[in-house]
């Protein structure tokens, strides 16, 4: 059982929703982002989604793209992100860590090398936006063989015909993208999302969390209310980018976590 599976099992037993927090590794620099990451579990974060910077983040809005650019400008490379995870693991061996990013930096490093290094560093799962089920042989299947979860995005355009294919090689949890759009864009609405989550849950036993377009504790609460959890990314990244000190960012994260856990 991966840390992700263990976490969701525990949450289910406690009848609690999962709060997933996204942050960009290396934004604005490695030391600051490591400090933020370290504080997330105590702020109520159940799963950490750690962004890996890429020059061409096609699924991301301006907020996360800018964070990636700051990280790259500070010199962050994939190895730094893995080192960050390994350091985190020295003091926290429970909080699941999911790397989220794009395929090319992984492909460039070599899939097998990357998977071995990621596993050794303490990574639990991967979300790679530009790898749909049609490209499962690339990374999804090797990742599962290496003991990492491969978390797939399901979207409003994923119809019933396609859903089984999307779920087929997904593990850990399903990430439902609440809007057709990019990260940090339009506001997600619980009334529209609820039936979609139910549609997915009818076809899988995996937990379904909702992300994209959740910016406030209230939104996190209402979206978590119709699913197994909520993901917040751009709002946290914006808070950090506004110059707020780490304790303030963590206070904000705690309000989001509390909102989600009320859901």
């Amino acid at each position, binding site marked *: 059982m991966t840390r992700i599976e263990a976490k969701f099992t525990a949450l289910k037993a406690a009848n609690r929703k999962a709060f997933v927090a996204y942050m960009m590794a290396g934004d604005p620099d490695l030391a600051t982002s490591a400090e933020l990451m370290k504080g997330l579990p105590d702020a109520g974060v159940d799963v950490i989604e750690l962004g890996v910077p890429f020059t*061409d983040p096609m699924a991301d809005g301006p907020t996360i793209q800018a964070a990636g650019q700051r990280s790259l400008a500070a010199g962050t490379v994939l190895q730094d992100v893995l080192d960050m995870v390994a350091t985190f693991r020295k003091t926290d061996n429970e909080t699941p860590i999911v790397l989220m990013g*794009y395929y090319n930096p992984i492909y460039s490093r070599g899939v097998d090398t990357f998977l071995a290094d990621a596993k050794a560093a303490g990574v639990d799962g991967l979300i790679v936006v530009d790898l749909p089920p049609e490209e499962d042989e690339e990374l999804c299947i090797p990742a599962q063989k290496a003991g990492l979860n491969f978390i797939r995005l399901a979207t409003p*355009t*994923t119809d019933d015909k396609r859903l089984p294919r999307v779920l087929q090689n997904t593990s850990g949890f399903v990430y439902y993208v609440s809007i057709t759009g990019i990260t940090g864009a339009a506001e997600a609405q619980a009334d529209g999302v609820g039936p979609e989550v139910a549609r997915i849950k009818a076809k899988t036993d995996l937990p379904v969390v909702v992300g994209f377009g959740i910016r406030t504790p209230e939104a996190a609460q209402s979206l978590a209310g119709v699913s197994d959890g909520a993901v917040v990314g751009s709002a946290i990244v914006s808070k950090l980018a506004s110059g707020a000190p780490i304790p303030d960012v963590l206070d904000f994260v705690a309000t989001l976590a509390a909102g989600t856990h009320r859901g």
Partner: protein
Amino acid sequence: MANDLFNSFMSGPDENGRFGLFGGRFVSETLMPLILDLEAEYEKAKTDPTFWAEMDYLWKHYVGRPSPLYFAERLTEHFGGAKIYMKRDELNHTGAHKINNVLGQIILARRMGKTRIIAETGAGQHGVATATVCAKFGLKCVVYMGAHDVQRQSPNVFRMRLLGAEVIPVTSGRGTLKDAMNDALRDWVTNVHDTFYCIGTVAGPHPYPAMVRDFQSIIGKEAKEQMAEAEGRLPDTLVAAIGGGSNAMGLFYPFLDDPSVNIIGVEAGGRGVDDRMEHCASLTGGRPGVLHGNRTYLLQDDVGQILEGYSISAGLDYPGIGPEHAWLHDTGRAQYVSITDAEALEAFQLCTSMEGIIPALEPSHALAHVAKIAPDLPKDHLICMNLCGRGDKDIFTVAKHLGFDMSDTEGREAK
């Protein structure tokens, strides 16, 4: 592979959109259903005579096809070797080969019931072609263009706006063609229900590379017939410039299974293909990676971050290349070389002064390679190069490089 009776260089891509290692469908899940729809619609259209009847009509009466195959007599004499023919796609409506493909995609978009067309553009030629066809069919058109390109290609920006398109300058990333493509993809993900993404080159997720190639193949089909008429045989060498590679794929494709035809793609060498990476020669100076929906050769650093290309020609300024070219390169069926800015500028002037044809900077790269090889080839060797665009859009850039002050009404050279 070329000698295998059961294999053909013209059978790709496979059902997964792969040309060997290259191609594929590396897009987010939101786009996947639409891409599969598009593929199904295109497969239907491909064998539908009414689709091709509409294309043929518009190619003839709206674009002005067939474009001539022109024997460049003075350049041939000047180089003193091979006979040089130019496929005159610069005579098309809107001044380049781009419209061949745009027509196909827009007709397809109409068949799919899409009412809003988006496109990315670098030099502005694909944007102008898209805006033009959208004007003709009364479709809403949005063109993404890097903020840097908006500045250096202002006449094309004005043209697109006159044609009714909304031109959105892209400032995200570094404001170049690849960033324009990122923003077009973001728009598409957001407006997937009514929007068709009209990609301008043989790149992107399957089925785009194959579809754009098929639409551009009219160039090679005509060239084959016209060469047969002029010389009674196949050409010996084909030469075309490559950014993403659509004009080249269009010329090359109908000749891929003619083993006697030597095929050469010319990449933009910028200030020289070396460690400074001031070029756009993805095949010569890059390595395989995944970007914009496909695996292909990319300009990237040693940890897989994408680098900006550089070229005097905004139309070649892209860090990738169509996946089919990557495959033709690796199989050895086509050869790829690079030409520097300086060499292209020289060819630009030569073509203008000796043939009375002002070529775009893109085909000037092709001509510069012709200038290198023609003198040493026998006089009965037939070269066919693709003159894929006219140079009106480039005169400001060329003037600047030649030190000519366009604002001086007496036409004096700049100090």
